[in-house]
């Protein structure tokens, strides 16, 4: 089945960076497995817990523990509401996941909670932007949520928390269309910064966007020496702050190139170009595997 333009009238930011386009297509067609596996559970826990800390503006360990417990309740309720039950592994090991995420949240609270010059605008804020491009017959509506929006001195800043991905390189971040899209959405789109009253604003400002690499909040598991700087770390030392908060450094001069890349991907999706890109590990974890064609005796898919 080929996704139509109307099915893709709205594109989520994460569609743009999925390693397997086929999965994007199957997701848009609703062909996903209604489960909450461990990786998704941990990610949701972290996001909810950190949002809770910002909401209460308390950052000590008891506050983190309370935030994790509250987050666990919210994640469980969400899973139930969306008919996405926990996998058996999550159901049996929820407390282990919570303890592991708690360690990360405690480190985040201790090291990255708001500095005096930071003005928190909000967590999990809905954002929308309609982009036109010469190569697209119809404009494309982008929609997403911003994990954390704040102002540091006069600069608007965006944090995007990542728990599941590999450690990103500088070159990868500089070419990351998902985070680039956040950057353009803040510049040109509208952000709902009062969700209760449904009040949206247009900042019209360039922002700084950071990939917050949550796994790097954990201390080093073994001794490590940075070959570039010569700095040595013992087992148990904390990783440097710039290993956690990775600023992307997007520059307005490159806006056109980024728009072209976004339009290219949207054009591919609208044209029904969703090749499956098998992954040695990812295919075994994919939430759409039941509907993805396979070529052995088992077969399957459409």
């Amino acid at each position, binding site marked *: 089945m080929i996704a139509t333009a109307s099915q893709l009238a*709205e594109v*989520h930011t*994460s569609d743009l960076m999925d390693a397997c386009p086929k999965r994007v297509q199957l*997701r*848009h067609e*609703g062909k*996903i497995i*209604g489960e*909450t596996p461990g990786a*998704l559970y941990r*990610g*949701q826990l972290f996001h909810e817990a950190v949002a809770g800390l910002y909401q209460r503006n308390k950052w000590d360990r008891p506050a983190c523990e309370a935030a994790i417990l509250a987050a666990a309740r919210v994640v469980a309720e969400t899973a139930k509401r*969306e*008919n*996405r039950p926990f996998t058996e592994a999550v159901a049996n090991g929820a407390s282990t996941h919570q303890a592991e995420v708690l360690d990360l949240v405690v480190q985040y609270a201790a090291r990255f909670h708001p500095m005096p010059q930071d*003005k928190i*605008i909000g967590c999990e804020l*809905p*954002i*929308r*932007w*309609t*982009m*036109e491009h010469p190569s697209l017959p119809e*404009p494309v*509506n982008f*929609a*997403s*949520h911003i994990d954390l929006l704040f*102002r540091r001195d006069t600069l608007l800043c965006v944090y995007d928390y990542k728990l599941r991905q590999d450690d990103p390189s500088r070159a990868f971040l500089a070419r990351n269309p998902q985070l680039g899209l956040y950057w*353009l959405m803040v*510049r*040109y*789109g*509208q952000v*709902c*910064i*009062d*969700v*209760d*009253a*449904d*009040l*949206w*604003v*247009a*900042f*019209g*400002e360039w922002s700084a966007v950071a990939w917050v690499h949550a796994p790097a909040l954990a201390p080093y598991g073994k001794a490590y020496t940075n070959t570039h700087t010569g700095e040595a770390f013992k087992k148990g030392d904390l990783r440097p702050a710039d290993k956690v908060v990775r600023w992307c450094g997007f520059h307005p001069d490159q806006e056109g190139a980024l*728009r072209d890349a976004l339009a290219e991907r949207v054009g591919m999706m609208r044209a029904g170009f969703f090749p499956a890109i098998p992954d040695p590990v990812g295919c075994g974890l994919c*939430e759409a595997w039941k509907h993805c064609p396979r070529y052995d005796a088992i077969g399957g898919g459409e």
Partner: protein
Amino acid sequence: MKGGAMVLASGMDLREMGSMMCASGFFADTREAAQAAVKIQAGAELGFPPVASMVGVYIVKGKVSLSANLMAAAIKRFDGGKYNYRVRQHTPEACEIEFYERGESVGLSTFTIADARRAGTQNLDKYARNMLFARAMSNGAKWFCPDVFGGPVYTPEEMGEPVNEDGEIVTTTATPTLPPPAQRETPALPEANTNGNGKATPAGPKVQLMETVKAWSGFATEDLPGAVRSCAAAAGVEINGKMTNQQAEYVQAWVDEQRAAGARFMDATAKDNKPIDVGDLLKPSGSPA
């Protein structure tokens, strides 16, 4: 049971009736047998048969709400005609209903277009008379006929549910789809969006209000929702949940009046300041003056 016995067809019990109603697929707002059973039971306690209850009884936020016509029917049939009412005025500007107990007038329930705009009533532009009647009826039921419903009674619209011209909850029959994992549904923009190509579609009332308040207050963008809330409070508009376009228009009229009078933002929105009454600024059509 007064005014109409509840008869379940062919010996069905409540659970079976709920299952049947739900399985019929005719009631889009009720997807589970237990929900149907509760609606039937709630309607039965007010003297309504099952189908009427399925159509006109809603359970919203734990409270029983009734469509206005069902409310009116319940009042008329209660206790052998203890209560009655007469609609004294019914225009797009106001609805006035006089209530009687044992034939004697006990009071008037009036709901005006200004009241409706202050309360953020839905559908005023399309069905003003219907919406005013519903609110006047539900207020009168609370004030003059409390024993009919055994407590406060609300229309679905009062409970914040989207309703049609008959005051019935609007439901979609579309098959719900799950959002992909980690892709939460992003709420729709309440009004026009802008794009990065210098084009913008006409702004809706909330965007217009935000821009006006920004110009008036001089606040930073991220502080505008707080400034708008301050204006709403000073204008006497209570924002519970989403701000409606009608509320935005009302607050806009208040802001325009304050600015025209030369008031400064901080003075006009100070908590101990008595704001200028802008009730007369609202035209019957709904457009702020």
